[in-house]
C-alpha cells in the first residue's frame, strides 16, 4: 500500500500585516473582525522573483533533507497549482529540471485550488499503483499573491503564499483512503481569475462551505463506518476562521479536534491542508484524520487518513 511517508513545507519569510490602521480604515473594518472572523493577523508573501516552481523546489529540498530520500528513487512528481510559472511548460517539469531528478521520473501538474491536495493524494496513489511505481512527490505551490488585488476587501486580507511536498511511498506513516469528491460547476464563477485578478463572491463561497462541506463529511464518515468521535483531527481547508468555525459548529464536532493554522500565514490554498497534516505525523494520539479541501470550481474532496506505522524519528 502506498501512503504518506513524510511532509515538508516552505513558507516564505516575508510577512504583510493585516492590522495596519490605514489598511483597516481603507477596508472599513477593525482588528477584532480581522483577527476573530477572518482569522489572519498577517500573511506570508513570496519574494518578487519567487515563482511557483521556486517555492515548490524549496519545499522539495526540505523534504529530501527531512526524509533522507535519494532523489534517484523518485518515480513521479506532481505539482498542484493554479498559478504556474508559465502556461508552457508545466511547473512540475521545471521543478524536476532544477532538482536534477532522474529522467524516468514522470511529471505533471494538477490545476486545482483549495481541493487540490486531497485530489492530488488520490491521483498520486492511483498513478503509482497502476504503473507499478514505488515513490512519488506531491507538491502544492500556489502563489496567489500574483493575482490578488490589494484593494479588494474580499480577498486582500485572506491569502498567503506557501508550498508543501509530500512523499508518498511503500512505508507510510498514514494511509489515505475512502476518498470522496464533488463539483458544483454551475457556481464556477464564484471564484475566478479574469484579466489577471482574483474575484470572489464571498456569499456563494460561504454558503457552499457552510452547507455542502458538513454534508460531505457526514457522508464520508458514514461510508467509512466511523463516528465523529472516532476522528482525532479534522483538517479542513483553511478558508477563514469564520468558515472553519461554521463548519465545525454545523457538524457538531468539538473544537479541540478542529485544526486551525492560518493566523500568521493566511489561506495558502492547496497548501493549507498539508501544512497542518505535517504537524500531525509525529503527534502521538493522532490515529485517524479527516481531510477536506474545498473551493475553486466549486470543487470539494475529502478522505480519511489512518496511522499505519509508529512515529519515526527522522
Amino acid at each position: 500500500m502506498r501512503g504518506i511517508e513524510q511532509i515538508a513545507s516552505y513558507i516564505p519569510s516575508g510577512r504583510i500585516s493585516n492590522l495596519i490602521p490605514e489598511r483597516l480604515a481603507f477596508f472599513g473594518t477593525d482588528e477584532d473582525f480581522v483577527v476573530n472572523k477572518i482569522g489572519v493577523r498577517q500573511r506570508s508573501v513570496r519574494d518578487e522573483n519567487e515563482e511557483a516552481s521556486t517555492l515548490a523546489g524549496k519545499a522539495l529540498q526540505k523534504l529530501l533533507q527531512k526524509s533522507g530520500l535519494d532523489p534517484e528513487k523518485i518515480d513521479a512528481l506532481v505539482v498542484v497549482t493554479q498559478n504556474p510559472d508559465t502556461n508552457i511548460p508545466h511547473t512540475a517539469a521545471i521543478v524536476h529540471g532544477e532538482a536534477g531528478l532522474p529522467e524516468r521520473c514522470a511529471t505533471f501538474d494538477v490545476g486545482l485550488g483549495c481541493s487540490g491536495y486531497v485530489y492530488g493524494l488520490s491521483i498520486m496513489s492511483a498513478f503509482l499503483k497502476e504503473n507499478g511505481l514505488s515513490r512519488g512527490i506531491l507538491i502544492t505551490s500556489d502563489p496567489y499573491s500574483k493575482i490578488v488585488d490589494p484593494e479588494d476587501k474580499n480577498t486582500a486580507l485572506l491569502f498567503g503564499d506557501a508550498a508543501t511536498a509530500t512523499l508518498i511511498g511503500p512505508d507510510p506513516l498514514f494511509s489515505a483512503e475512502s476518498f470522496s469528491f464533488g463539483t458544483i460547476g454551475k457556481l464556477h464563477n464564484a471564484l475566478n481569475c479574469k484579466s489577471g485578478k482574483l474575484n470572489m463572491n464571498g456569499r456563494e463561497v460561504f454558503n457552499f462551505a457552510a452547507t455542502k462541506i458538513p454534508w460531505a463529511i457526514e457522508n464520508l464518515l458514514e461510508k467509512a463506518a466511523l463516528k465523529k468521535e472516532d476522528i482525532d483531527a479534522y483538517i479542513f481547508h483553511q478558508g477563514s476562521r469564520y468558515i472553519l468555525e461554521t463548519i465545525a459548529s454545523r457538524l457538531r464536532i468539538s473544537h479541540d479536534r478542529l485544526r486551525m493554522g492560518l493566523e500568521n500565514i493566511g489561506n495558502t490554498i492547496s497548501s493549507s491542508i498539508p501544512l497542518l497534516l505535517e504537524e500531525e505525523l509525529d503527534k502521538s494520539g493522532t490515529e485517524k484524520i479527516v481531510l477536506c479541501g474545498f473551493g475553486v470550481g466549486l470543487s470539494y474532496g475529502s478522505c480519511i487518513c489512518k496511522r499505519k506505522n509508529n512515529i519515526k524519528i527522522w
Partner: protein
Amino acid sequence: MVTIDKLKEIVVASGLKADKSEIDAEKSFAENGIDSLDTMTLLLNIEDAIGVKFSEEEVEKIKSLSSVVDILNNLESSGDK
C-alpha cells in the same frame, strides 16, 4: 406570511442576539451589531427556515430584517416561494 417576529426568532436561534428585544428590525444589520459574515449566516438560516433561496439581486437589497420581510412577501405574492 413571514413576520418580523419570526425573523427575530431566527436571529436569536442563530446565536447572534440573546433576546428578540435587542433587535431593531428597521435598523441595518451593522447597526444591530451583526457584521457582514454573521449576516451571511443569518441569511442562510432564514433560507433554511423559510424554504427560499435569495437571488444575488435580492441579497443586494437586504440591509435589515424589515427588508427581508419585504422581499419574502414579494416572493409570496408573485408565487415564487
